[in-house]
């Protein structure tokens, strides 16, 4: 478990601090005062039923959604400060989407270099080098010249991770990264994420993969109806939840057929 690759430099990790975050769409309040702290290098998994607001919370962290109230601090940036340099902040926050969102008109390599050259102003050769290194990290160095539509879903998602890593982020946000994948490719993506966690990356992960959460997450946060219902070490929240809503949710997720199995 601990023999993480020696080739990769240790990550400069940033923490996240969210206070009393509120977000509404019209009269529908989806986040009702969320507070959450992620220490640098920690992995926090957000779980909960769909519509609980976990994806919205994640998207608020890099301001893809504009919160209505509350504060978010990411590393040295105060994301909710109206004067914050959002572009600068987002350079240090990697985001991985449920549907990958690779750029279909660019090759795999160019997907990973475009923001380096256009935003970080790296030279073409330096950007390629960084991109190839990160493609190796996700096990896809040999596909650099392909186009996204020539890859499987799992491969596309791993390219998306490499693309985000190529900006040298200090925090990675994952929005249900395996929900749109064929079951047999889920494992490859989770393996990459596990490795990233071992290398000390700060990660905030919205997921339905309870096995991954239990194994990799330092903390698990259970959300329902826009509030944090229960949070704590993964062991506690997933294996021994205290709140009835958490128990109910986990019972359904872990035993979807409702036949009923012995508590693991």
């Amino acid at each position, binding site marked *: 478990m601990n023999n993480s690759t020696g080739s990769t430099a240790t990550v400069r990790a940033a923490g996240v601090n969210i206070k009393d975050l509120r977000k509404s769409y019209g009269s529908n309040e989806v986040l009702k005062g969320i507070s959450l702290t992620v220490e640098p290098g920690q992995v926090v998994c957000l779980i909960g039923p769909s519509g609980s607001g976990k994806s919205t919370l994640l998207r608020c962290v890099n301001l893809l959604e504009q919160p209505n109230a509350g504060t978010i601090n990411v590393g040295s940036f105060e994301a909710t400060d109206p004067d914050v340099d959002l*572009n600068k902040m*987002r350079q240090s926050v*990697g985001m991985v*989407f449920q549907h990958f969102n690779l*750029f279909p008109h660019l090759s795999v390599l160019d997907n990973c270099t475009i*923001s380096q050259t256009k*935003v*970080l102003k790296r030279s073409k050769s330096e950007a390629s080098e960084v991109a190839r290194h990160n493609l190796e990290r996700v096990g896809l160095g040999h596909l650099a010249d392909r186009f996204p539509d020539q890859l499987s879903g799992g491969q596309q998602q791993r390219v998306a991770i490499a693309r*985000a890593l190529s900006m040298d982020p200090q925090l990675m946000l994952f929005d249900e990264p395996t929900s749109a994948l064929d079951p047999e490719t889920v494992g490859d993506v989770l393996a990459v994420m596990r490795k990233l966690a071992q290398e000390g990356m700060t990660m905030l992960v919205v997921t339905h993969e309870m096995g991954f959460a239990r194994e990799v997450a330092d903390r698990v946060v259970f959300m329902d109806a826009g509030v944090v219902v229960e949070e704590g070490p993964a062991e506690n929240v997933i294996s021994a939840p205290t709140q009835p809503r958490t128990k109910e949710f986990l019972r359904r997720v872990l035993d979807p057929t409702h036949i009923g199995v012995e508590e693991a």
Partner: protein
Amino acid sequence: MAMTARQRAKVSLYVQAGIFVVAVAAVIIAVDWKTIGTSVFNFAKIGPMFPDIFLVGLKNTLIYTALGFIVGLSGGLLLALMKLSSFPLYRWLATGYIEFFRGVPALLVFIAFGYGVPLAFGIQWDVNIIVMVSLGMVAAAYIAETLRAGLQAVPKGQMEAARSLGMPHWRAMVSIVIPQAFKIVLPPLTNEIILLTKDSSLIYVLGLTASQYELTKFGRDGISSLGAGLTPLLVAGAFYLVITIPLSLLARKFESRSARTKR
């Protein structure tokens, strides 16, 4: 007695084909071939049209179309971006422009810039500039709507992914959204060029010197000088097809290619 659905469909097809054949035959019989032969298909007398129909007519049609397209494409892109802007004034300006220039005949725009501008400002523009402005401004209105649809057809996640990588909005537009939008609108954009090619003929309302004639004006000139009736116009028409049919084929090729990559 009763026919099956398939038999009925077959009979219906035969009837349709029969009506078509009868209609064509009726036209052929009704036409006065003798007169047509001397005044429309009188190819014996059109020798003097060559080679200038290539060197002047075709060349100028292509130049006028290209000038109009360059202005139309850049203006159309600007208008499309204005129309999608979050700033209401830009949206209103773009909407007003598009509605106006799509709503008035292109001929009036040519007259306005050909005769109105000299009267209003006391300056006489070169023909190339008049064509560029008139054709370009009309084209911009049509192209703007095409491009707007293309920009909106690019999935929202593309902009989100680009912004998440730290790109400013304009950079995400230039490097990520606009290239994909262009790929989407390539077929309709090719059709816009076909329309422009034909609209370039409207320049005939201006006084042109012989070296400025494009295909239609060249053909009209032939009517009065060659004594072959309308034949020169028929020849000019054929030259339009030489331009537009390959463009049509190109558009179809783009269409099938994008259909394939969509999967």
